[in-house]
């Protein structure tokens, strides 16, 4: 075990996968210079752990700013023997390649009757909450959840980041990872061994009996903090992190809500057609009778993200708004 940051864990998973399989390559803007911190040991190419030094230009591919071609090249390469990891840096840049994601990456295997497999991972990080304005603050994973054929993960801790990414790289299907820039610095003890966390298995971030909170990405630590605060008010809150959004571990969610009868869903994406709405719909479809109160969603509003520090913070769920929702669903106000 080592104390590892979320970002470091991602770097570690990439390094292990690069070492394990020569077909794994990294493609992306500024990956050579380790600008985003997952392809090197430090700030200099001379630093120990620098990917370019270790794997060479053939496998560490600095690209032009051409997201659509980057994604398409990776898809074509994945169908013909490589296993690319594509670093798209900000999630807000995925739109540039939307056609490739939806029409090629997600559909090819199906359309071709299973002739192709598509072992490729597309990494990006959601940079919200950092006063970078509307162009850099998107949390667009819900729209990709509406596209069958993609698998989607959103790790919320260093050990999940490492294990899920490794599983993603080993998977023969296309995976999109939505990392959370806000969590980059969070640290915990992470195994130095190789390990993989299979998709479709939620993590119970905190056990409880009165209210279930399903939280996504950076809302997980906020939900845990809210749960801690609620314990003081005598409410026992269970926090579930689905970790993988497609496939979603609905069983774990349903089991928890069957027990608690009360559900809050918290996520940083926009409200309409978000993951929270989906989870709410599934739960009321499946275990309507178990529900003791209406499900409450705590999400970003259907509004773009303003730049000013005086405006931005209120846009995302936090421990206070989550705790308010818990109180409400528990009938405490």
């Amino acid at each position, binding site marked *: 075990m080592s104390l590892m940051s979320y970002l470091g864990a991602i770097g570690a998973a990439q390094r292990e996968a690069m070492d394990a399989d020569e077909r794994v390559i990294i493609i992306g803007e500024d990956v050579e210079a380790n600008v985003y911190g997952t392809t090197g040991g430090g700030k200099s190419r001379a630093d120990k752990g620098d990917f370019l030094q270790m794997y060479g230009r053939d496998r560490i591919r600095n690209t032009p700013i051409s997201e659509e071609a980057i994604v398409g090249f990776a898809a074509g390469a994945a169908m013909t023997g490589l296993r690319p990891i594509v670093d798209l840096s900000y999630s807000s840049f995925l739109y540039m390649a939307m056609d490739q994601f939806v029409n090629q990456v997600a559909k090819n295997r199906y359309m071709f009757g299973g002739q192709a497999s598509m072992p490729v991972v597309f990494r990006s990080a959601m940079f919200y909450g950092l006063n970078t304005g509307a162009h850099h603050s998107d949390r667009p994973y819900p729209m990709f959840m509406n596209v069958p054929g993609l698998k989607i993960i959103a790790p919320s801790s260093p050990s999940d980041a490492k294990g899920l990414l490794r599983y993603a790289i080993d998977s023969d299907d296309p995976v999109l990872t939505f990392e959370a820039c806000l969590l980059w610095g969070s640290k915990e003890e992470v195994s130095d061994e190789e390990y993989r966390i299979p998709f479709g298995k939620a993590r119970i971030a905190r056990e409880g009996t009165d209210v279930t909170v399903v939280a996504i990405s950076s809302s997980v630590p906020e939900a845990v903090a809210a749960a801690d605060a609620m314990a003081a008010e005598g409410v026992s809150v269970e926090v579930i992190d689905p970790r993988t959004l*497609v496939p979603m571990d609905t069983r774990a969610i349903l089991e928890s809500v069957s027990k608690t009868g009360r559900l809050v869903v918290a996520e940083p994406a926009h409200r309409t057609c978000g993951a929270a709405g989906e989870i709410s719909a599934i739960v009321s479809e499946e275990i309507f009778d178990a529900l003791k109160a209406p499900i409450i969603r705590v999400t970003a509003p259907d509004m773009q993200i303003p730049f000013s520090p005086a405006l931005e913070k209120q846009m995302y769920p936090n421990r206070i708004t989550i705790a308010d929702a818990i109180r409400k669903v528990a009938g405490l106000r």
Partner: protein
Amino acid sequence: MIKQEAKGSSMAAPTKDQMLEMQRRMLRIRYFDERASKMVKRGHIPGTVHTSIGQEAQVVGATMALRDEDYMTGNHRSHGHPIGKGSPLGPLMAELVGKATGVCKGKGGSLHLADFSVGSLGESGIVGSSIPIAAGAALSASVLKKSHVSLAFFGDGAANQGVLYESINMAGVWKLPVIFLCENNQYALSTPAHTVTSGVIADRAAGFGIFGVRVENGQDVLEVFNAVSEAAARARAGEGPSLIEVVTYRFNEHSEGLRIGTDYRDPEEREQWLKRDPIVLFRNHLIAEGHFTAEELDALEAEVLAEVDEAVRFTDESPYPEPETAFADLYTDKEEQFA
């Protein structure tokens, strides 16, 4: 054929066998597409099909210049490419009808034919979308140190999709073994290329530092073959990508059964082009040059016609897929969990 610069080693002329194979594949495309057209009109093929009738030289000149293992992607004008690459006709025809024996198990249909066994990585219903896929296959060849070349077929219409230039540029800096082949049949649906194309497509290569060539007589299978052979040789020699624009003409409507009036295309223009039927031209050439007799070529035509008949028979006798198969093939693992 205007060449910008010729770097690749000069190509050997095609052998007699190769020429016969060219004519065979052109005939396959012609007869297959003629039959498909009829089947659309009779309602035997659902959806829509786009024929390559009139463009056979451009297709076959290109595919015959590739090796069997080389990769290829295409577009909505989709049957010619895999046929040209050597794909057997039965599963292709069965796919058009939506049978379980189709090359994509009935899931793709005309617009999304793919036959990985002959390096056909997929046609695409989205104009321009499969271009970077071909370049990605060339990236595999490059990283895995294989000798594959990859070729992307696309139309004059697709030549205005930005992803083409992103792909050309990135393949250019990485010197990937990929050929961008523009089938300039002078129209994109109802839109004449010259009304929506600023400059000359082949000329766009130069600004991106790659080799560019315009094959003016795309009805001559040998001209296309030579241009693509050179590009493939350059690609295999590590000299990077090429952009080849082939001037040709589609004899049929944009898609079979589509009626958009003829106002956009001068009937007289079409008449002139019909006289430049690539199959007739090549037949005459083969006879004139003494490579084959008329009888030999008649026999070839009969043979291919029988092949197409056989493909239709195969299709007719094939079952439709079971409804539940619609829920397989999306993911490689535990597919049922998503159904």
